[in-house]
């Protein structure tokens, strides 16, 4: 299927916070109460629409355990967006965010958009991290923030789409150089506004700005 852009995402965060469930809800529109463990990395993809453009998302869902960090790190490079997930009912998953963030910033390109996701907001009675705390952390570290429920399909769509809209803005502003695949963005073959754009790729303009 043709698309205007391809964005690469990575989902990171402690084990058991619901990374695979978020992905499954986003790609398959279903929830599996007990999801299989993720060993290493799993893959998912979906097409979304951003400002009338077809955008293909390739999503790498990583294993949360520390042991796998050396493998998952290689997926930071070449990702345009990251969903950093914690579990609002387990405070330690919130405490570990700083480490995750350091790791992500060190191994990714500087233009990567990071969305902080507080998952399992359906379990409000067992909440251990308040919405305000999550929001504050996000503001301090310049992240976008949402609370989600993979179970009830709350804000899941929004988490992936919001990130894509910001990546799209960064492309339009020339912050992301789309000719460099390491930035996690690839220009597709879909005709955007007019077909002759293919002759003069949309990439030329942002590139100029970026370099100038």
């Amino acid at each position, binding site marked *: 299927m043709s698309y205007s852009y391809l964005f690469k995402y990575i989902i990171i965060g402690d084990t058991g916070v619901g990374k695979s469930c978020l992905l499954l809800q986003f790609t398959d529109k279903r929830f599996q109460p007990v999801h299989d*463990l993720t060993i*290493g990395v799993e*893959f998912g993809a979906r097409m979304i629409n951003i400002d009338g453009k077809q955008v293909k998302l*390739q999503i790498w869902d990583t294993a949360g*355990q520390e042991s796998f960090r050396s*493998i998952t790190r290689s997926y930071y490079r070449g990702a345009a967006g990251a969903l950093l997930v914690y579990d609002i009912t387990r405070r330690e998953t919130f405490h570990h965010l700083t480490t995750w963030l350091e790791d992500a910033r060190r191994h990714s390109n500087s233009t990567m958009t990071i969305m902080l996701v507080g998952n399992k907001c359906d379990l409000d009675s067992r909440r251990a991290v308040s919405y305000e705390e999550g929001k504050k952390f996000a503001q301090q570290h310049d992240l976008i923030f949402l609370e989600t429920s993979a179970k009830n399909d709350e804000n899941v769509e929004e988490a992936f789409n919001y990130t894509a809209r910001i990546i799209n803005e960064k492309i339009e502003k020339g912050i992301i150089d789309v000719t460099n695949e390491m930035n996690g963005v690839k220009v597709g073959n879909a005709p955007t506004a007019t077909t002759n754009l293919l002759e003069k790729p949309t990439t030329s303009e942002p590139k100029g700005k970026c370099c100038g």
Partner: protein
Amino acid sequence: MYKKWYKNGIPSPLRSKMWVASLGNELQITPGLYEILKDKTNQPSTMERQCSSIDLISVDLSRTFPALQFFQYPDGPYYQPFKTILECYSKFRPDIGYVQGMSYMVATLLLYMDEYDAFVCFCNLLHRSKCNSNPLAMSLVGTPAGSASSSATTSSASAASVVSSILFGPKKRTAEFTSNYHTLYTSNHFIPFFTMNTDYIDKNVKFVRILLREHHAQLYKHLVVDLGVEFAVIIIDWFLTLFSKSLPLDVVARIWDGYLVHGRLYMYSCTMGILIYYQKELLSADYERVMYFLTHLSTATNQFETLDVEEMFSIINTDCRLSERRINKYIRMMEK
């Protein structure tokens, strides 16, 4: 007898005995040691790494074979032994601790044997120095020191070079060959995988690509050349758990039968066999479909009720059968 089992798998009632016998007990684990380890699991740990990995076990148990009731908390009959074995292992080897993926292997063992046997088998599966069951190679290889350690690639390269010089006579072998030979063939792969030794894993990935190129040029072209499929993702999942997460339990048991007789050769045959068995799906799929398919193989095998086990094993055991000589040839290709 072996030949027949190789073809059809070990008959279920004999399987437990065969697995225990083939794995042996090089580590000399005793019931006494197991009791001591069990006691230790009740004491609080001082090591941070161990602590967090032990907490993880309870979280992960319910996520291992979620469809199988007998592993589930609190009523599943296998729940307690399952948990105990993993906790004891992380006390036995606190330097490695519990790593996700181990639970699938312990579960597979528990389906065929009791708790203590499963613990002995699990530890020996991971740490035995001889994982290559080819009798000739086994008698010659002996026990290369430190071959199970994560730094094996370099530390026992000299041991491997002695072995290969015995095996292959005067023909000159490069240092790279002997190191690759060790990494890809004679060493036990589990600990380098569980400790995420990236050099070791990268070599395995590269080797699997060569195998695919030599076995099925068309699949190789489509997956590697055209789509640039990341084999690392698949190899980690399949090799780390010895296929136990990705395939139906009866298929897994037969793969383990073959692995315990033939060692790492069989792991490679299975990898090729699975890819070739699904060649029709793979050849017609784009990058996204291929990656999804291969990282969710259990979903695929569950969905296609039509999984033809006999056909799959016929491909694995006949078309993808590997000999010592072929392995050597392919390892030599690694240098190019």
